[in-house]
């Protein structure tokens, strides 16, 4: 029979998900199945997306859910529509907050990624010979998104362990997850602490950290006094690395949309077509990319 697989993502505008879709499409071409791409920004949209897939006669779907607590609902909906279910990026949890282990998952640990960011920053700070206790930390935060909290907290835990002072960590809450919002919030932090000369920045993604970096530029802090490390590694970061002179955007932790998109789609196909159940849990890791080695890292991860 014709195989039809759904790929539902929470934020279709994000380049990350564009890439996941792109790589899933590659798998579809290879194996000759139909891929149905649906964006579902909230719980309600997820429900209708699954119904919609059922109505179209799909046999299974992969989802990056807008919220992990939607787990039981998604599982129930999938069952009601007799659809096979896999998750990507974010893992579903039950009402008690424990992961739903029956649902095959491929993803990243938000905390782990954050820790990688923290490690990269404190390594660089040491290399530059700064005194961590005197460095200011901009925490560009978007606390209504749990993944964002986990990432940022992961980074901060490493920084604190490496001698950064808790008192020098400043919250710059974003009203929205775009660069302008991060820029405005960070500017306030910088102006409030005009005495601090060296800054590092962490945030939910590249756009958030870029906002903080732009803020340092606008108040006249030189690039060599700033270390921002983002998460993602898509065009926003690449544009930054392509700039003729180095900016305060020191690096980014790239996660691979290729594995997430291509492999999950492939696994789902195998499951449907050949009854081969996928592994219950595959965790991928992030990889730090800097101005001079980002192309190599991307190649390494198979993104280019």
């Amino acid at each position: 029979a014709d195989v039809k697989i759904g790929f539902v993502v929470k934020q279709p505008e994000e380049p990350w998900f564009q890439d996941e879709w792109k790589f899933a499409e590659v798998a579809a071409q290879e194996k000759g199945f139909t891929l149905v791409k649906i964006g579902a920004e909230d719980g309600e949209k997820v429900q209708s997306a699954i119904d919609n897939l059922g109505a179209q006669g799909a046999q299974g779907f992969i989802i990056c859910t807008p919220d992990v607590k939607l787990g039981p609902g998604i599982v129930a909906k999938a069952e009601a529509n007799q659809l096979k279910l896999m998750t990507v990026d974010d893992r579903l949890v039950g009402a008690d907050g424990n992961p739903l282990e029956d649902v095959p998952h491929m993803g990243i640990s938000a905390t782990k990624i954050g820790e990688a960011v923290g490690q990269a920053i404190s390594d660089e700070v040491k290399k530059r010979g700064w005194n961590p206790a005197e460095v200011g930390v901009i925490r560009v935060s978007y606390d209504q998104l749990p993944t964002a909290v986990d990432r940022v907290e992961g980074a901060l835990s490493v920084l604190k362990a490496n001698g950064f002072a808790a008192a020098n960590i400043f919250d710059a809450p974003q009203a929205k997850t775009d660069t302008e919002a991060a820029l405005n919030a960070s500017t306030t932090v910088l102006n409030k602490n005009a005495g601090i000369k060296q800054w590092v920045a962490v945030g939910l993604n590249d756009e958030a950290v870029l906002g903080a970096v732009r803020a340092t530029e606008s108040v006249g802090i030189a690039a060599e006094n700033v270390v921002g490390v983002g998460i993602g590694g898509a065009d926003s970061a690449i544009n930054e690395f392509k700039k003729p002179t180095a900016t305060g955007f020191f690096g980014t932790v790239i996660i691979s949309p290729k594995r997430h998109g291509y492999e999950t789609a492939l696994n789902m196909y195998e499951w449907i077509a050949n009854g081969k159940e996928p592994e219950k849990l595959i965790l991928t890791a992030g990889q730090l990319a800097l101005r001079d080695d980002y192309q190599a890292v991307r190649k390494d991860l198979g993104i280019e």
Partner: protein
Amino acid sequence: MSSLKKLLLGEQGLVVIFALAFVIVSLTVPNFLTERNMLGLLQSVVTIGIVACTMMFCLASRDFDLSVGSTVAFSGMVAVMASNATGSIILGLLAALVCGGVVGLVNGVVIARFRINALITTLATMQIVRGLALIASDGRAVGINDPAFYQLALSKFFGVPTPIWIMAALFIVFGFVLNRTVFGKNTLAIGGNPEASRLAGVNVITMRIWIFALQGLVCAIAGVLLASRITSGQPNAATGLELSVISACVLGGVSLAGGRAAMTGVIVGVLIMGIAENVMNLLNIQAFYQYVVRGLILLIAVLLDNLRSTAVGRRG
């Protein structure tokens, strides 16, 4: 006037246009006209449909409510948290209704009694209520302890899920209220000419407060059903709902200048929004193009309706 023309240009013209469009879509889009898809489609518009019932009153009385999305999320959260805490689903539901009603009441009192602009007031409560939802849950979704709660959304009568029945019941109730009761006529009168209504002895302030309070209550119903469907209380749920609901109403011929509203129109407006979404996904239209298509559908729908009503030659 030929009878076809009469049909197209009459009061029910939008309904007829919609029916034509529906037939065309049914014939051309595969998998569209199946029982499964129809039920899925209807379920997908439950929140918009329910909230549109009272938004219709709100707009018809020349008011405006941007806080509905937050209220839906907040009361859903409350329902889940309260029933988790008390162990009783009924208490959870009551708590949600009370909270929704209170939000609406506050809107109404501030707007009608203190005469504060409705846009600003509800923009403010939209943020305050969203903030409360986030604070209450610390920004994280709250899972439902008692699986019986899911049954609200999962149970079916005659093969049709309960939420759809509830939406249909509300359509009937509010359609009746609008056309056949003093409350409905007073709403239209206030929207058509607030000054005249006041001078005719309509208690405009009380009416407006009631309309907002009802809006809050109905949002709570939508919020509870949503929480049950998505099996958790989500502080970020239903963002942007306000614009979808208002568009559905305006699409259905409710005038933002007040005084003009019809339940059939609103139902059609809601369905148009739902069908557009549904068909785009069935046809696997790319995400970015969906934006463009959605915009075009909105434009075409009002354009058609407008051609129709200028042909009728309505004055004013």
